[in-house]
C-alpha cells in the first residue's frame, strides 16, 4: 500500500516526459515539413511563397543557420539585396564558417557595391573579423572562458612550483595576447547583439536631425551594416561602419 503513491509519481513523471518528447518531436516534424515546403517553392521559382513557408518556423522562435541562408537566397532571387544581406547576416551569427553562406554573402555584397559604395570598416574591426569572424558568439564565450580557466590554472600551478613561477610572466603574456582581442570582439558582438541592423531600403538619406526637413548628412545604401545608437518617434540614430552618425527613418532598416 505504501508503495502506491511512489508508483503514481514515477508513472506520471514518465508520462509527462513522454508527452514533452513527443510534442518536441511533433514540433520538429512541423518545422521540417515547412522547411521542405519552402524548398519546393524555391525550386519552382515562387520565392514569395517560399519565404512565407520558412517564416512559419521563425514565427515559433526557432532559428537555424540553414533556414536564414535559404531565406536570404529567396530575397536575393527576388532582387531584394537589402533583405538578402539581412538574412545572410542572421545566418552568419549561427554558422559563420559555412562556405556557401560566405560565398553568397560576398556575391550579394559585390552586387550591392556595384550599385553604390559601401562604408568601409576601420582596420581594427577588419582585423577582428579576420581573427574571430569564424566564431559564433557562443564560440567566443567558450574561447574566453577557456582562456580564463587556463589563466587560473597557470596561477595555481605557479603557487606550487617555483619553476612554473619563473615562467609565469611569459604564460600570462601569451594568454593576454590571445584573450584580449577576443574580449574586444566579444564585447563588440554583445554591443551589436540588439543594435546591429541592415539598411533594407534603397539609398536612405541619413540626416543631421530627426525631421523630414533636416539637412541630409550622408546616404546609406541597402545592405549596409549599421548600429543603432538612439531612437526617437519613427527615427533611428545610426552609426555607419566608417563612424558617421545620422538619423534615418525607422522603416528603412531592420535589426539583425
Amino acid at each position, binding site marked *: 500500500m505504501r508503495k502506491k503513491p511512489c508508483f503514481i509519481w514515477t508513472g506520471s513523471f514518465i508520462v509527462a516526459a513522454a508527452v514533452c518528447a513527443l510534442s518536441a518531436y511533433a514540433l520538429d516534424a512541423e518545422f521540417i515539413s515547412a522547411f521542405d515546403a519552402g524548398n519546393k517553392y524555391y525550386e519552382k521559382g515562387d520565392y514569395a511563397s517560399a519565404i512565407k513557408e520558412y517564416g512559419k518556423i521563425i514565427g515559433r*522562435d526557432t*532559428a537555424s543557420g*540553414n533556414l536564414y541562408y535559404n531565406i536570404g537566397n529567396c530575397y536575393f532571387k527576388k532582387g531584394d539585396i537589402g533583405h538578402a544581406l539581412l538574412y545572410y547576416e542572421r545566418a552568419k551569427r549561427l554558422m559563420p564558417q559555412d562556405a556557401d553562406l560566405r560565398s553568397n554573402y560576398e556575391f550579394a555584397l559585390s552586387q550591392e557595391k556595384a550599385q553604390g559604395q559601401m562604408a568601409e570598416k576601420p582596420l581594427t574591426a577588419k582585423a577582428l573579423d579576420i581573427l574571430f569572424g569564424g566564431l559564433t558568439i557562443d564560440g567566443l564565450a567558450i574561447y574566453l*572562458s577557456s582562456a580564463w580557466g587556463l589563466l*587560473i590554472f597557470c596561477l595555481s600551478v605557479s*603557487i606550487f612550483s617555483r619553476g612554473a613561477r619563473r615562467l609565469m610572466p611569459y604564460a600570462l603574456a601569451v594568454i593576454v595576447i590571445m584573450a584580449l582581442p577576443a574580449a574586444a570582439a566579444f564585447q563588440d558582438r554583445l554591443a551589436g547583439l540588439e543594435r546591429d541592423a541592415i539598411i533594407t531600403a534603397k539609398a536612405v538619406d541619413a540626416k543631421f536631425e530627426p525631421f523630414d526637413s533636416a539637412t541630409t548628412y550622408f546616404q546609406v545604401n541597402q545592405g549596409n551594416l549599421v548600429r543603432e545608437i538612439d531612437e526617437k518617434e519613427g527615427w533611428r540614430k545610426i552609426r555607419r561602419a566608417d563612424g558617421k552618425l545620422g538619423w534615418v527613418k525607422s522603416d528603412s532598416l531592420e535589426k539583425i
Partner: protein
Amino acid sequence: MVDVLGEGSVVRPSSQAPSQAPYTQSQNQSDLGDKAYMTMEVDKKTVFVNESMTLKIKLYVHNLSMRDITYPDFNHEGFSVTEFGKPDQKPEVQHGMSYEVLEFSAPIFPVKPGDLKIGPAEIKGTVIAQMANRVKRSIFDEDADQDVFSDFFGGFQSFPLTLTSNAVDVKVLPIPDAGKPDTYQGAVGTYSLDVQAQPSKIKLGDPVNLKMTVKGSGNINTVTAPLISVNEDEFKTYEPQVTKQENDSKTFEQVIIPKKQGPALIPKVALSYFDPSSRSYKTIEKGPFPIEVLKSEVDQSMKVVETPKTGAEPETQEVFGRDIIYIKSSLGRTVPAGKYLFQKGWFIILQIIPVFMLGLAFVAERYTSRLRTDISYARGVRASRKARQSVQKVQRALSQGAGGKFYDNVFKVLQDYLGDKFNLPPGAVTADVIAGLLKEKNADELVTKKLVDIFAECDMARYAPAGIDSQKTRQTFESVKEVIDYLEHIRI
C-alpha cells in the same frame, strides 16, 4: 594717313579692346560714311550639310588709322566654324576710292539643313582721327592748358569704333538618301585614299599595321576610318586609331593579326564619301594586300623543349559566371532564437569555479609549506592523524590480554603521541613534564590527573607486573581513550 594695323595687333573677340578715347561715346559707323566699312561673303550660296565653304569678312578702311582691331565676331547658328587665320592686308580700289583691305577668311561647315543665315559680323577697333575743324587758338585762350597739349600731340583723337557687316543667307541641303552606299559613314567633300599594309612578311602571331591616309578638301572631321571587312577566322582586328589629323588630311592606323600560316590577302579597304560638286556618292577601294605569314619562331623553339603530350586536354575556362549557391536541403540544427550561452546561469557559475579552485590551491600551498617548515606544527598534525591509530593499537594490546605488554604498548603510544603533540624528544615525555605543559595551557585538571595516573600505572606494571588484572587494563584503556580524545578536541 592709313595705318590699318597700326601699332596695335589684331585682338581676339574675347578680349576687350582697350579704349584710349577721352570721350565715352563710341563713334558711329554712319559718321564715318564710306571711310570704313565691312562686308561678309561666302563662296557658295547653296551647300550640302557638312560641305566645306569659305567665309570671307573684309574690312575696308580709307584714309584712316585704325588699330587694336578684334577678330570678327558673328552669329553662326547651324554652322561649325574654325578659327580665323592671320588676316590678309592689301590695297583695293572701290567706288573710285583706294582702300586698305583687311581680309579674314575661314572654312565653315553647315551642320544642319535649312535656310540659314550667317552674320552680321562685328569688328571692334580704335580709330585715330585728326581734329579737322579745329581752329588754332592763342595761348591766352581760356582752355589754354588743354590746347597746348593737344597741339603738342599733333591734334589727333582716338575713338572706339564698332563696325557691322551685312548678313549672308545660305541654303543648306540635306545629303540625299538616294544612292547611298552601305559603306557610307558621313564624309562630305572630295577625297583620295592611300593605304599601306606593313610589313608584308610576318611571323604567325605578329601584327600587320594598316596605315590609311585620307586626303582632300571638305570637312575632314566627318571622315571616319575606312572600312575593312575581314573574315574573323583568318584575322583578328583591332579598332582603328586616328594617328594624325591636319586641315586637309587624316591618317588612321589599324592593327590586324593573321590567325593562319601561309600566304594571305588582307581584304579591300573602302572609303565612301558624298561629293557635293557632282552631287553624288563616291567610293574608293584599295587593296587587297597580299602578305605572307611565316611559321612562328616562338612556337618552333617551344617544340624543341616541349615534352611529348600525354593526351592532356587543352585548358578550358573553368568558371563561366557567378551566381549564388543553391539553397540547403536540410533544416540543420535548430536553436531557440535569441538565446546565448553567456546568458545561461550555469555558464556564469562555471566562470566563478576557477576562482574557488585558486583559493583552494592557495590554502593547500600554505598548509603544505607550513608542514614542511614548522616542525612542531607538522608533529602536531601528525599526532592528530596518529591519535586514532594509537587508540586502536592500545585496544589491540588489550585484546591480546598480556598485562605487561599492554602497559608497554600504552606507554609507547602515549610517548609517541604526546611527543608529537608537544614537539618533545621521546626521552622528555614524562608525567611531570606533560602535567606541567597541560597546566600551562589551562587544560582540564581531571584529564591531567588521569594522564599522570596512566603514566604511574605504566611504571607500576613495568616494575610490579603482578597486580594487573583485566579490570584494571580496561580501565586504563578507557582513560587513554578519554585523554587522547580530550587532547584532540582542545586547542593546544
